[in-house]
């Protein structure tokens, strides 16, 4: 006896919802360098700094995830016009796959301006998903 309705719950995150340690490590290191570069240890303010760093890391993680999801769900042309998105994707060094809605898409798309000097970011259509390389 098979159920007529197909199950709609998720048992695992899709690829672009996954936590990506390599991207987050870069993010953590950036936040710490920004916050602590000119600081000297002081036992009174250390607690406050650590709270600020953790809030900042949390906020940036949430933002990265939202941007990646946006890239997957909106039209690629629109997603790529945002400089912020390009910066976030460029932090993820290795090629990654972006799921996109099944709709006709151009075969390849260069992102302008390049996210980092001397680098380029391109999206290639693989039918229903995008291949992102930077």
């Amino acid at each position, binding site marked *: 006896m098979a159920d007529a309705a197909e199950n709609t719950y998720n048992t*695992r*995150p899709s690829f672009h919802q996954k936590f990506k340690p390599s991207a987050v490590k870069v993010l953590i290191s950036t936040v710490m360098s920004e916050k602590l570069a000119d600081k000297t240890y002081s036992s009174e303010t250390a607690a406050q700094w*650590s709270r600020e*760093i953790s809030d900042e*890391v949390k906020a940036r*993680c949430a933002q990265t995830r939202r941007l990646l999801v946006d890239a997957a769900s909106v039209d690629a042309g629109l997603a790529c016009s945002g400089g912020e998105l390009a910066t976030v994707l460029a932090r993820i060094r290795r090629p990654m796959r972006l799921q996109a809605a099944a709709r006709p898409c151009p075969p390849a798309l260069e992102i302008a301006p390049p996210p980092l000097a001397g680098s380029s970011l391109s999206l290639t259509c693989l039918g229903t998903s995008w291949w992102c390389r930077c």
Partner: protein
Amino acid sequence: MVQVLIGEQRGEGIRYGGRCLWDPNTDSYAEDSYRNDSLFCVASAYGVYLY
């Protein structure tokens, strides 16, 4: 979940631990450390998927 430790840098070694319960199929963590002349900082972020 993010955990941050800041301490004074006096050239000694330290041991530091953090734990989190997670599902190896979906969750992960990232950490990095920073140090300058007067302080060190260790930050770890745990990504836990809720479903």
